[in-house]
């Protein structure tokens, strides 16, 4: 299958006749990357599916206003991140509990999740990640799993590179301690 660059997709979008193709290639290109990014935040597969659908719908509706000041990928990543965090907050509100309690619940649900195939150490790692504050959790996942450069991460999270590096090291240190001590 032909590989479509962001420029190609945007060009297809601008032409009314090929807009449907643009949507097709946009989803094909980014569905997996965004899925795994969202999944590591909301943990459950079903919740991830909902958030991912909403993300693509928002992206599609907002594409007309996309100014190309940032890369399409980082823009989509930002939307996916915001959607995921909003989802967690809404879930906490619906359960009349705090966001920390939701993270604790997510950590507990991992053990019985049929869509989690990790071994004991992977489970420990995920539980340790879930104890981190929201921002550190995002930074750690984006750096450790997605291997995203700090510059790109800076665009997504709208934070300076220095602050992101500090966040990552604090997060890694905490996780290291949690894995060793539990």
């Amino acid at each position: 299958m032909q590989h479509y660059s962001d420029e190609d997709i945007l060009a297809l979008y601008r032409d009314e006749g090929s807009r449907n193709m643009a949507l097709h290639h946009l989803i094909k290109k980014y569905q997996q990357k965004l899925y795994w990014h969202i999944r590591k935040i909301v943990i459950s597969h079903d919740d991830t599916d909902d958030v991912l659908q909403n993300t693509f719908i928002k992206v599609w509706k907002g594409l007309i206003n996309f100014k190309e000041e940032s890369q399409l990928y980082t823009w989509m990543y930002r939307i996916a991140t915001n959607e995921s965090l909003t989802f967690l907050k809404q879930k906490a509100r619906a359960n009349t509990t705090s966001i920390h309690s939701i993270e604790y619940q997510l950590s507990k649900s991992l053990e019985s999740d049929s869509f989690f195939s990790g071994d004991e150490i992977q489970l420990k790692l995920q539980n340790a990640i879930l104890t981190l504050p929201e921002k550190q959790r995002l930074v750690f996942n984006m750096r450790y799993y997605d291997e995203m450069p700090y510059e790109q991460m800076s665009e997504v999270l709208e934070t300076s590179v220095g602050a992101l590096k500090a966040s990552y090291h604090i997060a890694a240190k905490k996780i290291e301690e949690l894995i060793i001590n539990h």
Partner: protein
Amino acid sequence: MSHNEDHNFNNEPNFSFENKGKIPFGLPSDYFASFEEKIKLKLELENELTEFPLLNSISKGPVFKVPLNYFTENYTAMECQAELAFYKKLQTIKKPVFNELEIEYAHSLNQSINHKIELANELKDYQTLYHLDKTNPFVVTEDYFETFGMRVKDKIYSSHDKSVSVFDIIAEFIFNKKMAFAFTVIAIIGLSIYLYQSTKPIPISHCETLACLEKLEIINHSSFSNLDDDQLIEMVNIKTLNKQLQSTISQSDSTEHEQYILDNVNTDQLLEEL
């Protein structure tokens, strides 16, 4: 008979055995017989070229080159072919032709290798994380990504296809969150103004009569309850009050006179007088 015994170490053809033990080199049998012919041919060619000085000045050295390792690779290819000769089925399969890599790819590859090194170096401080397998522990349902695109497209296009009536547009405009917020704000402001106006005391300086003051007293009960007698008296316009009292007295006088006539005068007398 072996060649070595004859000192023919290079296995040269037409090795002469006549001078065995003296000259260990061989010659083609007709070498000297054809030598004169060869010299004549060379001279003839050179003579021919003298007529063309430009051509004669150009060196006759080899000008074409072959790619580096061409002959070695060719040999390797032939060797591979010879090996494949034993495997008839493999021979029938056409080998794929790979395109040359783009320069950009080499650049991005360099960048990604550096990035990987950077990531690994970062994790070296955290030995547990460093030695941990980085595999993704989450899984998805089978065919999830194959069907996902269709589901999103359905959602997007189903929202587009809905026929929207003018009433719906107006209703949506009126009952959307922003409008609801705006209406609420307007209602709160309106109610506040109304309540403020209704509790605001009527300016006392405009009131110049007792009746007005009485009315005001009812309306602005709270305001008047705080006033003492002197303040109330000060508010009364004495001139206007006098005038009003005079007119009231005169009115009551005329009314009494009319009543006296009605009581004391006979109707017949009145008719006669008329």
